[in-house]
């Protein structure tokens, strides 16, 4: 029998507000242990939380970016469980009235992964286990998170990967998080179940906790899919449980121990008051959103005439697309801008991290000037290309490398004159060409280029020469 994979994701994303969700401590990553802490975030008796307004705003933006409905009334709840990384023995989160309801993420195959809701909550501290001892650092405790809970709509590992990438992309665009999986600012709990193909019922699911790379998500899901299918095929049953994925062995194992009775006893946090979100505020935040990647990609294809491949590469990171947008301002051919970025600048921003930060010496305005020179016919493509390399090396503008004499000299008449000269002064090559040696034309074009000091358009020159001797 063939089995279908069914998966849903709970994705935690740390918000890049300046301060923690309930106190004024910095959210900066790292720092010496227990130096980003205060009585509130280490849960000293008597301390009280006060909600960071920006957290609500960031979460609403996240919700709008994935087409969620922003609740008019939201409330904070306590999720009670005792663990050393949780300084109050409860996490302030949302269950009964989350800030965002519904929404979806659309995949390239056209399927929409529906979202159940998005809520805000606080992160826990960090535990380091050494020789059986536990060291606790609360710097991360109280850093704001959103948790994006999807419906079990994912049907393949490729879809899972794309779902995570899409979320990462859109949240970075909106600017609410850097979504760095390796630093833990984006983490996924992956629910996996299987069912006979064609079946509508959901199978028993397992939950793989705390996945922090897309590769591992794929490997863990694959392992878990195989494990569940084997189990069912051999007459067994999947047990609903929480799993951890071991990168070294590529296997999942149960996290359950007799010490964890799981009953979170959620109830309204009496220390915090109701959040009312006015529709005006929602519209205000909506107006602050940048153009989202899916919309941008579509615009590049439909309006700028870019190939889909180009559009996708240019919209993958917000900084690149903004660079592109600025460099395109007023140019005749957006495709040349795309070519310069993808063909040349990308060679200097090889890693994904480089592409994300897109720290390029040449400003988009400088590229724009270069492309405009090309547009106006003042320089030719090969000169533009070599000039861009120099610009990228130095950060200087195009005009620092192209002199007046490099520009403009070759109008059509001048070109015809140069071609005539080439034909007259190279009878041997003309003869060879006429005898069928196609390559001989190159020598003639080369002559034109040489005498024009590289300013002539080689393609145009070739066609003119062919007209003359053809």
């Amino acid at each position, binding site marked *: 029998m063939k089995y279908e994979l069914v998966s849903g994701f709970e994705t935690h994303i740390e918000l890049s*507000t300046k301060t923690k969700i309930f106190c004024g401590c910095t959210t900066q990553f790292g720092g010496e242990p227990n130096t980003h802490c205060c009585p509130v975030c*280490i849960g000293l008796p008597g301390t009280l939380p006060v909600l960071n307004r920006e957290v609500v705003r960031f979460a609403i933006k996240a919700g709008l970016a994935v087409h969620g409905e922003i609740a008019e009334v939201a409330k904070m709840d306590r999720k009670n469980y005792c663990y050393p990384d949780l300084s109050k023995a409860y996490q302030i989160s949302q269950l009964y009235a989350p800030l965002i309801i519904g929404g979806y993420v659309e995949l390239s195959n056209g399927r929409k992964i529906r979202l159940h809701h998005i809520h805000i909550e606080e992160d826990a501290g960090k535990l380091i286990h050494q020789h059986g001892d536990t060291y*606790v650092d609360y710097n991360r405790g109280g850093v704001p998170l959103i948790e994006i809970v999807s419906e079990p709509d994912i049907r393949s590992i490729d879809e899972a990967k794309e779902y995570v990438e899409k979320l990462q992309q859109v949240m970075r665009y909106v600017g609410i998080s850097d979504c760095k999986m390796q630093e833990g600012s984006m983490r996924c709990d992956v629910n996996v179940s299987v069912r006979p193909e064609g079946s509508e019922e959901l199978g028993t699911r397992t939950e793989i906790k705390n996945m922090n790379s897309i590769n591992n998500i794929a490997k863990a899901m694959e392992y878990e899919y195989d494990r569940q299918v084997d189990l069912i095929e051999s007459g067994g049953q999947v047990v609903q449980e929480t799993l951890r994925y071991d990168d070294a062995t590529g296997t999942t194992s149960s996290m359950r121990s007799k010490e964890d009775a799981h009953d979170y006893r959620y109830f309204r946090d009496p220390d915090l*008051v109701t959040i009312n979100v006015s529709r005006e505020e929602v519209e205000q935040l909506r107006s602050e959103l940048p153009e989202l990647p899916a919309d941008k990609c579509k615009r590049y294809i439909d309006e700028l005439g870019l190939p889909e491949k180009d559009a996708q590469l240019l919209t993958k990171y917000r900084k690149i697309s903004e660079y592109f947008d600025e460099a395109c301002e007023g140019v005749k051919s957006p495709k040349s801008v795309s070519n310069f970025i993808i063909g040349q600048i990308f060679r200097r921003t090889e890693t994904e991290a480089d592409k994300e930060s897109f720290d390029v010496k040449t400003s988009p305005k400088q590229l724009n000037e270069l492309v405009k020179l090309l547009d106006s016919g003042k320089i030719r493509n090969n000169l533009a290309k070599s000039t861009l390399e120099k610009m990228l090396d130095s950060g200087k503008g195009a005009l620092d490398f192209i002199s007046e004499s490099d520009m403009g000299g070759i109008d059509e008449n001048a070109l015809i004159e140069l071609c005539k000269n080439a034909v007259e002064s190279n009878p041997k090559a003309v003869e060879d060409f006429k005898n069928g040696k196609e390559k001989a034309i190159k020598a003639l074009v080369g002559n034109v280029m040489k005498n024009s000091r590289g300013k002539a358009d080689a393609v145009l020159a070739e066609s003119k020469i062919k007209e003359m001797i053809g």
Partner: protein
Amino acid sequence: MVTREDVENIALLSKLFVPEEELDGLTKSMQEIIDFADAINNAPASDEGFDNINNLSNVFREDEVIESYPSTEILKNAPEQAEDHFLVRNRE
């Protein structure tokens, strides 16, 4: 009915040990308190609801950094610490 198993379960959730010999007594005492709490079942049904006293909403802080405490202060009351961390030794 409050059962021994209920009490064992809530003790585990509460991170409290209940010695075997105290379990029956505690179950009985919990049952009495629960019987007392059960009085609310005779209350008239209502959908009055309760949000918070004074019906407050939208109390926020601005996203402005306030200097954190030095780790020496943060760790001052720790029963055990090492290398600027709170420490839980596995065994003692």
